[in-house]
């Protein structure tokens, strides 16, 4: 198993990953609450970015409505906890089923009718918006007045009910990110991974090679949706309040796909690098504004926009592929 995992990965890459992991594991003991909260955000976006990347980066289906799955996952687990006191570890089952089902419905409808490309992207937005307005009127989860989770304590970590300190959430998010990374790594080396890439590159050719493209696209959507829903569960229990206006909003969908696009669509490390760069960039720009004494709201976002523009213009494949070459980590010869 381990040999299989490491197969084909350059040694330097493994070493770098281990160092990074060690730093991330030690972080709560080294840094204060602020940096920890930023690191949490980075991991959060790295995780959802990875989940989105399965659908877009691997299988080539552009989803611009991933906030749908975050929101469904968050609401499912939170509602079960608030109404019945059901632990999120059980509730996440419901999250996975509901989000996976939503993904399956969207995928089924779209792929059956040959909706793809821009049309598919806009269909995903439409479903997310549909959910946003629907949840605004969904009284069982308090509609637009928001669903609040009871906050009990911060001193003791109740892992079973996900009540506790930021460090607990940080480690949970770290574990999820690592798991998602390893899962994607394994997937890419498996039959389904090869098939996804083939579908992404040329659906016609893939089909001519015996690949049931409908089936494999469905796998990608359902898996991506289910994984994304878990991020929603963490979101709900971390922030302890949910508003449809916020969680299903299209700006959330955009936010969570910027990371993998900037980092490198279809690469394993891309979502990680992208989430790190974007969060650090946002925080760095805020600090820069403070340092130079600019206190006009909106200036930071303008600079942020220009940075995005620059990256997308000059690094069309994202930051990671050229960075990997720079670090000597690009794909090595796999065969003898």
């Amino acid at each position, binding site marked *: 198993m381990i040999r299989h995992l490491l197969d084909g990965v350059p040694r330097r890459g493994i070493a770098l990953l281990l160092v990074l992991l060690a730093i991330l594991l030690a972080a709560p003991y080294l840094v*204060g609450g*602020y940096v920890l*909260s*930023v690191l949490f955000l980075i991991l959060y976006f790295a995780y959802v970015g990875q989940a989105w990347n399965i659908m877009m980066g691997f299988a080539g289906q552009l989803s611009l409505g991933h906030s749908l799955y975050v929101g469904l996952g968050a609401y499912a687990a939170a509602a079960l906890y608030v109404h019945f006191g059901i632990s999120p570890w059980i509730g996440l089952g419901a999250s996975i089923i509901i989000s996976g089902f939503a993904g399956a419905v969207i995928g089924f409808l779209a792929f059956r009718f040959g909706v793809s490309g821009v049309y598919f992207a806009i269909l995903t937005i439409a479903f997310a918006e549909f959910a946003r307005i629907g949840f605004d009127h969904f009284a069982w989860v308090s509609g637009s*007045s*928001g669903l609040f989770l009871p*906050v009990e304590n911060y001193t003791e970590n109740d892992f079973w009910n996900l009540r506790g300190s930021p460090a607990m959430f940080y480690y949970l998010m770290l574990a999820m990110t690592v798991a998602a990374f390893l899962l994607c790594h394994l997937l890419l080396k498996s039959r389904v991974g090869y098939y996804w890439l083939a579908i992404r590159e040329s659906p016609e050719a893939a089909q001519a090679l015996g690949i049931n493209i409908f089936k494999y696209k469905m796998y990608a959507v359902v898996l991506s949706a289910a994984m994304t829903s878990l991020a929603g569960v963490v979101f709900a229990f971390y922030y302890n309040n949910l508003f449809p206006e*916020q969680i299903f909003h299209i700006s959330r969908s955009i936010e969570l796909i910027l990371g993998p696009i900037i980092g490198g669509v279809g690469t394993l490390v891309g979502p990680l690098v992208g989430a790190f760069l974007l969060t650090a960039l946002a925080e760095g720009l805020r600090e820069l504004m403070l340092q130079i004494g600019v206190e006009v709201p909106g200036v930071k*976002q303008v600079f942020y926009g220009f940075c995005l523009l620059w990256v997308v213009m000059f690094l069309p494949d994202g930051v990671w592929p050229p960075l990997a070459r720079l670090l000597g980590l690009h794909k090595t010869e796999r065969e003898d």
Partner: protein
Amino acid sequence: MSNSNHSSRRGISRRTFATGVAAAGIIAGSAPFNIVRAQAKSLKVGVLLPRSGVQAGIGQDCHRGVEITAGVLKELGLPSLEIMNGDTETNVDVARSRAERLIADGAQLLVGAFDSGQSTAIAQVAEQRGIPYVINIAAAPPITEQGYKFVFRNFPTAPMILTDAFANQLEIFKIAGTAPKTAVFMHVNDTFGTAMQKGFTGVMSKFTMPYKVVETISYDPAARDLSVEVAKAKATGADSLIMVSRLNDAILLTRELVKQRWSPTAVLSMGPGWYEDQYLKTLGKLSDGPMSFVPWYDPNKKVSKLLEKALAKAHPGINLNTNHVYTFEALLVAADAFKRAGTADPQKLADAIRATNITDNVSTGPGIQFNAKGQNDKLKNSAIQNRGGKLVAIAPASASNAKPELPMKPYDKR
């Protein structure tokens, strides 16, 4: 009141951060916790407001309240506050990490954040770090029902706003000698709007109101066009309109009322929008008449006059409103507690806030006190009316400076 160089102690680490995008930069960016909490002459207060993003308008308006605070506190003989600003960008992620950042930079007390979702996120940080947090505006009841020890709210909850609104309406109808018979209740379908809608029927049943609500209409906060809503309301034949709205929709609704040629005898608003400067400015003489039943200030109080003066100086032409008043009062609570505690120690500061008893304040009612949950339950709301581009307080009698005008002048006769 500048935040650009409030902390030279942290200057180096901040610069490291600004330059570093690398992991090392992030990790070195902040020392573990705030080890030194010196007995400073002034209190460091982190103010978190949504000054960009969707709520930028309100956030920036609240910020005007921050700007005029320093002078007023000085006149009241209270210690000065060192303000550190944080923009939440109308985003709960940013609200949380900004709160952490301000605490890491030495904030000893937090104030903010207008929105219920962002306030909840900040409240959790404050509670975890043991830093007192005074909410300026946020009406969702659950925030003070969580058993927090460090979170205080000097703003009424939705049921409180409703109770006072009905009481004030009865008072006004009595003075005016007339009252509407039927009403349509229209509310925006957002956090505040639904909180109000939920309490509406229950609270109303405790009063004997002269009017009957014939229809309830909820509409989308992002609505671009409200002609359907007004057409629907008009079709009920009701003679008055009860509103819970925001600014943009209040303007849109008024335009539609005029265009669809429907002049209710009264517009009774229980939320923002109808009294705001932009409403008055955009609609001119068509803005006259609506009454707002809102958390307001008592124009007869001494500090109110100071605040009005300070605002007129800093921002001529802008009327003092809820956003300024409650943001100011949150800072007033901070300065008062700091004076009594004599220390910035968060625990002692929180104890001092819990023992707050400010009678020399701005908002309507007996003053500022907090109950065991950290809620000021003594707050009273006012009724105000738009008159010629200005706002007058018309109820309760003890906090008013004008008589109500009812019925409202029809739109086509102006």
